[in-house]
């Protein structure tokens, strides 16, 4: 008898009573029940939302795949007229756009939302309704962008939408607006999911899961969500600038009025290159989960894999200019990016060697998920090597915009993203649905796709080397490309057939098929501790973790789990609860009440979506009304669902541990979410600041000689008022926290007025200075910064008034003041934004000699 068993036997526990356990289970089931009938769509539980999300992402994948088959059919013969040029342009633009924005990133979020709570042995992520909101935004935006192709209105500018092609309404119709606004909306949803996942990994690990015991999948989720936070905002800033140019003629990208199209390329690729790793790392995370399971040993060099995830994430932000090697930037600038592009191969290689080492050390059992994982590595390594080739500037000059690049990027993305993901679907299918997929169909699908892939894309290296450019609608006979294109097209059909087999296997009815056994792959990580058929409660109780692979290494783990011998084994109050722990050592900190099913996230997504959709068609009044309604729905959702005052201070979480039900400030998950969101927000603002300095570098003088500049003293007034607003919030929060309700009731309206005054001063400063946004890039940049500040201050005022209403209705008191603490954090960021605004509008013209 081991220590653990002896221990359990010595100590009688109430959990020894089977009747008590059954009663607990009944209560938990009732609380976590999936809504039935129409109300099913109000579900917010991570397993349901995750499933919708995954299905949605794969739907867009299949759609984009069909577009690829259409393109390949067009390119099968020279001078083909299967697709018109216009439709071909729409097809390649939508193929790239959908694969990146509607499949690769969302599917990471989908799988992570689905897996994470179970992988962490917790009930749910801290913000289930935020996940649901992200899903609805994704599906609404996705259908909007995708649907445009049926009206012949899809964008045609390529997935990177370069101006000036995309910035002139005469060149490109509404498609570009659909792309800019539709995708901005989806990007916001992605950031929402990233916030959810970061807080999830940092704050909802099970007790005892210290950082050194955290599964590799969680490390990757943390790293990738962090990358999203820094990569997506510059694109949102770019989208804003480009849409302002298209809709209101603000000349950010028009060289005749001081703009520059290269600015877009910078903003796009500061997003676009990390994006490649944002989609690649989660799939590698799947490989890192599958490999130890089938090698039957823990990952060799666990921390080396952590190193490579973190290292790759950082270095991937130093690669963006390698997409711009042919734009005429100084060669020495290109060299820095070329060097970083070579350096990123080091961490990427480290993790692959760790996987191979694990396979060598272990006794590998043959399985279909493993087949996909090894196939993925083979393809990815080939793509990585051509990546090192195109990272060399002279080689890239030759290969740029040719089919060589098409071959390279598909080797990395299909090897690095798609195959691991499909392997992951097979691996976790029993986890998602309690049934197994067919081995035979899985192998058929694999060999069709693997073979088809190499038949399609290997020849493209040659086609590119022979000079065939990307994105051409058709080509003349006899250039040496005819046979190669024919072969590629045949290969593409095989990939299509393989995916059809796979999709059939996933979707075919499995009513009569028996349930898969529990932990069917004999995995070591906690998601497979789930019962078959699964319950919606996430985990029967929240376990204590002392090892990296609890199912392999913690004796009696499953029995203890099933008998509810760990934390939160009951739902006495009939509320959904999850455990919040500390960042480093996962010490229990709080029992967090999480909200249940609701239509509010869906409603908020619909109205916020209409803001973007109506804006696309220039219906600005209707768009603003819908946006306002969306804002009201969000406030209603927050008011009724977040930080409720609990009926008691502490709760017994099990095993003699009593935890608070309410926490405020940096101890609360809401504070972390605000902090993370605002980091992303500030990054977007830095995108605008980058635009300002970019213009400064390309112009001999910026502001240009004789330009109108913002009125200095009004800008000074603006920063003083903004500073006072911040000070009032800061001091008001402190005094309110120490018991003065009056501090809130006077401070909040006073801060609101000061903030409004600050915005008015900055606007007047630009207006009286004579800045006309359509006249020059300088004027437009100043105005966009003021606009940004104004909108953020307006949101900040809404938050202040929300707190004020809370104070008057008793929702917010000095003891229960999480909302106020979070709003204060927001205002810290607003102070930074205001200071930068003042520095650019007020001080910078002084430095360049244009001051008062």
């Amino acid at each position, binding site marked *: 008898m081991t220590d653990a068993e002896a221990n359990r036997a010595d100590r009688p526990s109430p959990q020894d009573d089977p009747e008590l356990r059954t009663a607990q289970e009944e209560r938990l089931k009732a609380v976590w029940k999936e809504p039935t009938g129409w109300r099913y769509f109000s579900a917010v539980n991570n397993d349901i939302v995750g499933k919708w999300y995954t299905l949605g992402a794969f739907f867009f994948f299949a759609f984009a795949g069909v577009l690829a088959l259409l393109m390949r059919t067009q390119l099968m013969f020279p001078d083909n007229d299967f697709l018109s040029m216009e439709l071909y342009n729409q097809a390649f633009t939508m193929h790239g756009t959908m694969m990146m924005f509607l499949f690769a990133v969302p599917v990471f979020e989908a799988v992570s939302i689905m897996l994470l709570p179970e992988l962490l042995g917790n009930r749910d992520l801290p913000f289930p309704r935020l996940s649901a909101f992200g899903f609805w935004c994704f599906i609404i935006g996705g259908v909007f962008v995708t649907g445009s192709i049926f009206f012949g209105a899809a964008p045609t500018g390529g997935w990177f939408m370069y101006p000036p092609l995309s910035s002139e309404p005469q060149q490109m119709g509404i498609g570009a607006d659909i792309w800019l606004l539709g995708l901005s909306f989806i990007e916001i949803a992605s950031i929402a999911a990233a916030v959810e996942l970061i807080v999830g990994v940092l704050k909802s690990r099970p007790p005892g899961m210290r950082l050194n015991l955290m599964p590799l999948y969680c490390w990757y989720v943390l790293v990738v969500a962090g990358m999203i936070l820094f990569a997506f905002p510059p694109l949102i800033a770019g989208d804003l600038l480009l849409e302002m140019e298209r809709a209101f003629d603000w000349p950010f990208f028009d060289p005749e009025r001081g703009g520059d199209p290269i600015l877009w390329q910078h903003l796009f690729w500061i997003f676009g290159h990390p994006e490649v790793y944002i989609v690649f790392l989660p799939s590698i995370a799947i490989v890192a989960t599958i490999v130890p399971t089938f090698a039957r040993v823990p990952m060799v060099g666990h*921390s080396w894999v952590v190193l490579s995830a973190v290292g790759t994430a950082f270095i991937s932000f*130093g690669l963006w200019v390698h997409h711009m090697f042919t734009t005429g930037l100084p060669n020495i600038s290109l060299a820095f990016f070329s060097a970083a592009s070579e350096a990123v191969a080091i961490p990427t290689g480290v993790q692959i060697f760790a996987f191979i080492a694990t396979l060598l050390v272990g006794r590998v059992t043959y399985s279909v998920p493993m087949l996909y994982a090894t196939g993925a590595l083979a393809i990815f390594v080939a793509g990585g090597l051509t990546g090192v080739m195109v990272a060399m500037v002279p080689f890239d000059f030759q290969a740029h915009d040719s089919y060589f690049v098409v071959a390279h990027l598909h080797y990395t993305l299909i090897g690095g993203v798609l195959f691991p993901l499909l392997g992951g679907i097979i691996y976790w299918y029993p986890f998602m649905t309690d049934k197994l997929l067919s081995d035979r169909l899985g192998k058929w699908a694999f060999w069709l796709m693997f073979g088809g892939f190499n038949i399609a894309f290997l020849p493209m290296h040659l086609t590119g080397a022979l000079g065939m450019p990307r994105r051409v609608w058709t080509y003349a006979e006899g250039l040496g490309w005819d046979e190669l294109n024919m072969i590629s097209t045949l290969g593409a059909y095989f990939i299509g057939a393989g995916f059809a087999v796979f999709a059939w296997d996933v979707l075919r009815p499995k009513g009569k098929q028996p349930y898969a056994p529990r932990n069917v792959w004999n995995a070591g990580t906690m998601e497979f501790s789930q019962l078959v058929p699964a319950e919606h409660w996430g985990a029967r109780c929240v376990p204590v973790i002392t090892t990296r692979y609890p199912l392999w290494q913690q004796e009696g783990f499953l029995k203890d789990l099933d008998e509810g011998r760990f934390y939160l084994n009951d739902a006495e109050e009939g509320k959904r609860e999850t455990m919040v722990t500390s960042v480093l050592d996962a010490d229990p900190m709080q029992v967090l009440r999480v909200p249940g099913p609701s239509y509010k996230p869906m409603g908020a997504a619909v109205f916020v979506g209409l803001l973007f959709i109506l804006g696309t068609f220039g219906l600005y009044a209707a768009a603003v009304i819908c946006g306002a309604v969306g804002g009201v729905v969000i406030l209603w959702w927050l008011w009724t669902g977040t930080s409720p005052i609990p009926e008691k201070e502490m709760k017994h979480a099990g095993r003699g541990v009593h935890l608070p039900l309410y926490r405020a400030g940096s101890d609360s998950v809401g504070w972390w979410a605000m902090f993370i969101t605002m980091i992303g927000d500030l990054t977007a603002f830095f995108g605008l600041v980058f635009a300002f300095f970019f213009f400064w570098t390309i112009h001999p003088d910026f502001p240009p000689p004789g330009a109108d500049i913002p009125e200095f003293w009004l800008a000074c007034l603006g920063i003083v008022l903004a500073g006072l607003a911040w000070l009032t919030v800061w001091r008001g929060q402190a005094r309110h926290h120490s018991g003065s309700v009056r501090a809130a009731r006077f401070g909040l309206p006073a801060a609101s007025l000061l903030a409004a005054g600050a915005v008015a001063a900055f606007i007047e400063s630009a207006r009286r200075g004579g800045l006309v946004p359509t006249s020059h890039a300088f004027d437009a940049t100043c105005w966009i910064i003021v606009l940004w500040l104004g909108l953020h201050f307006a949101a900040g005022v809404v938050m202040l008034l929300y707190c004020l209403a809370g104070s008057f209705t008793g929702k917010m008191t000095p003891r229960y003041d999480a909302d106020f603490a979070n709003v204060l954090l927001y205002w810290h960021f607003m102070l930074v934004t205001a200071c930068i605004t003042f520095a650019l509008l007020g001080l910078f013209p002084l430095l360049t000699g244009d001051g008062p």
Partner: protein
Amino acid sequence: MTKIDERARDAELSHTPPGEEPPKRLLEEGSVWIMIAAPCIWALHFLLSYWAAAVWCAKLADRYDPILPVRAGVAVLTLVALAVVAWLARYAVRRYQGRLLIQEDLTEHSEAERTRFLGHATLLLCALSAAAIIFDSMPILVFDSCY
């Protein structure tokens, strides 16, 4: 199998009162920031080198002018960055007991082990960052003008 029995586990868990973590200095033991410090140095070095060259080439130098100040500046910056990374590595070894393990096995369930894990990961990231910094300084050896 597990080294620590359930009782020890419980004792460990109740060791720190829930949520009562003492305030910590930024790089003090028990801070996760130490891990990303070295890559941040790389990022700073990278951006400053690129900006220095880009601004110099845009504002001050003609196409084939020698750019000695940029090269000298980046060289100095590289040495400073490497020195800071070396200091971080030393910190990881001293304060976090970081060791350069090949067959890493820092799986014990204790605060000390978690610290060692962070130290070890930091050390690895220092090595990677140093390599990347050296990579990114190579252009100044090759280019004596902007183009």
